[in-house]
């Protein structure tokens, strides 16, 4: 087990390195002089020279990269020029918000997607199956922003049931936190539910045809046990892997939804940073997203490993 994780980590490290190269040099290619941005209104040559010196902007680009990476390794992601806060602190503030949103969205996606997928596989070719597929397809084709806006109009503006925007930490006021997050989580979750439903359905269809499911029936087991234990346990492998990957995508993909519901999360942080050319924040956020994504890949691998007796017993 540990050697398995070690092997995966050995792959993750060069990946993170590549991402860092990409993030750094791509940003260097962007037009605009960072020194000018940093200097703000004061454009006198002395200030500019001082800034260039302080941020190593005169050094060769490789040296600059080295400074950046070694800073990050020591937990120094730089300072936001907009708020003057350390980038790491900003991330520490916003990331939990997005994680809460992603977790809630994932729970909603699983509660809807997995049972719907199982049901439509078991009832393949019936009205139940077609209905589930049509709903899933509409779920996939309706853009998140539209669904979000419609929900705000209906539930918040028209019915006045839930707040249209804002955020509250679950540690301060759990009910209020749930109220503010449920709609955006629903918007994100339904889109994922559709993907999850279709993958669950096809995994279950494959598994329900197997000889061991026939064996389970030959034992006289109830159909419920055959489907939910013998079949689903084997379909779980691809479903869990997919869920972990989807969760990784959620962290990065919540940008638009956070904008619509004005949730002060990761998405909003990066959008604001890009618009204000807050380089250090952009770089830090992108690095964090990438690491999070790679971590979720690792989680997917580990779950796959834990759920698969063939791999577990091979050790």
């Amino acid at each position, binding site marked *: 087990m540990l050697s398995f994780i070690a092997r995966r980590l050995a792959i993750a490290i060069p990946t993170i390195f590549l991402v860092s190269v990409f993030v750094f040099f791509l940003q260097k290619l962007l037009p605009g002089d960072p020194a000018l941005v940093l200097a703000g209104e004061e454009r006198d040559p002395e200030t500019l020279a001082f800034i260039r010196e302080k941020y190593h902007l005169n050094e060769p680009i490789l040296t600059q990269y080295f400074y950046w990476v070694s800073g990050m390794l020591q937990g120094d992601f730089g300072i936001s020029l907009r708020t003057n806060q350390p980038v790491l602190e900003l991330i520490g503030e916003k990331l939990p918000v997005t994680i809460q949103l992603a977790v809630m969205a994932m729970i909603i996606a699983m509660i809807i997607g997995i049972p719907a997928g199982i049901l439509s596989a078991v009832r393949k070719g019936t009205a139940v199956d077609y209905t589930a597929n049509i709903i899933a397809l509409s779920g996939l084709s309706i853009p998140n922003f539209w669904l979000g806006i419609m929900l705000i109009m209906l539930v918040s503006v028209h019915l006045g049931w839930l707040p249209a925007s804002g955020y509250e930490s679950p540690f301060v006021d759990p009910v209020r936190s749930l109220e503010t997050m449920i709609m955006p989580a629903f918007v994100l979750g339904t889109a994922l539910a559709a993907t999850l439903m279709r993958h669950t359905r096809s995994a279950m269809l494959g598994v329900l045809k197997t000889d061991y499911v026939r064996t389970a029936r*030959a034992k006289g087991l109830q159909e419920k046990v055959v489907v939910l234990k013998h079949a689903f346990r*084997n379909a779980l492998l691809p479903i869990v892997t997919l869920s972990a990957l989807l969760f990784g995508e959620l962290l990065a993909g919540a940008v638009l939804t956070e904008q619509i519901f004005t949730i002060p999360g990761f998405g909003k942080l990066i959008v604001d940073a890009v618009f204000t050319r807050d380089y250090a924040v952009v770089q830090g956020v992108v690095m964090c997203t990438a690491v999070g994504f790679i971590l979720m890949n690792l989680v997917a691998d580990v779950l796959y490993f834990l759920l698969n007796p063939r791999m577990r017993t091979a050790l």
Partner: protein
Amino acid sequence: MGERPENQANHPDDPPLLTVENLSIRFRNAAANTVDGISFNVDRGETLCIVGESGCGKSISALALMGLLPMPPAEIASGRMVFDRRDLLTLSPKARADLRGDRMAMIFQEPMTSLNPAFRIGDQIAEGVLRHRSISQADARRRAVEMLDRVKIPAAAERLDDYPHQLSGGMRQRVMIAMALANDPDLLIADEPTTALDVTIQAQILELMRTLQEETGTALIMITHDLGVVAEIADQVAVMYAGKIVEQGPVDAIFDDPQHPYTIGLMSSLPSLGERQSRLTTISGMVPTIETMPSGCRFAPRCPFVHETCIARAPELTSLSRNHLAACHFAPLEAHVVEAV
């Protein structure tokens, strides 16, 4: 081992354990019945071998008996199946499932894929026991060890926690047998249980099944395309061709005095030297598909003795001697040999 009725012998007026009457199975949109009007009986403790080439409908007949036929696309077009005085087709799904894995059990042709890869073999055996008996988890587990022991898996108690992929094909088939016999069924259906295995393993599994059947007194329907297997274990034989039973009777009658031209062809393709071979080398032509099924005798296109009557009309199974039946217009053949040549 549990409570076996001490005497498995049948009284002459006891009904058979299983009666199949005129069973027909049809697939959706098919031009003809894939299994067409088969009938047979199985007495308690008896072994019936169903022989026939691949595709003649042996497996789907067995699945129909177990209630495992996928319906749709298949449907039971006609017939009756009475098992231990119960009319299977009129039972509720629940009552049918209560029989399955308890009074009637089945093992399959594919040992490599028939066990669930996600669960330990001990749990898979115990699960079937727990489904049909009100006993504790621990007792079910003990029963699993006992069964693994009986199918001669070495160090049974240690193998209990193995996953299927840790076992060879032969071992997995032993586990399947253990699972099937765990509740002392009255009837075991074995669908080509050795076909997928190496020749040496085949002999071992067959020997094991014969021993276990003697010990437990369970009735056995052994499906095979291998006449060597038939010779070794059958009491009764039913020969199937293209969805019909063309000849049936006690094993001696079938081997010593085959009457249907198809059976005769099968016998003459059986090499006399120990090596088993099942190909039909002496019967020319191909098995008709469901689309090209002749309306007369289904064997007519390949029959060396074919006659106008055979093409016009399907022959009924008729009694030649006690319990020996053949579906041929010209049975008993001896009476017609001159005419046919």
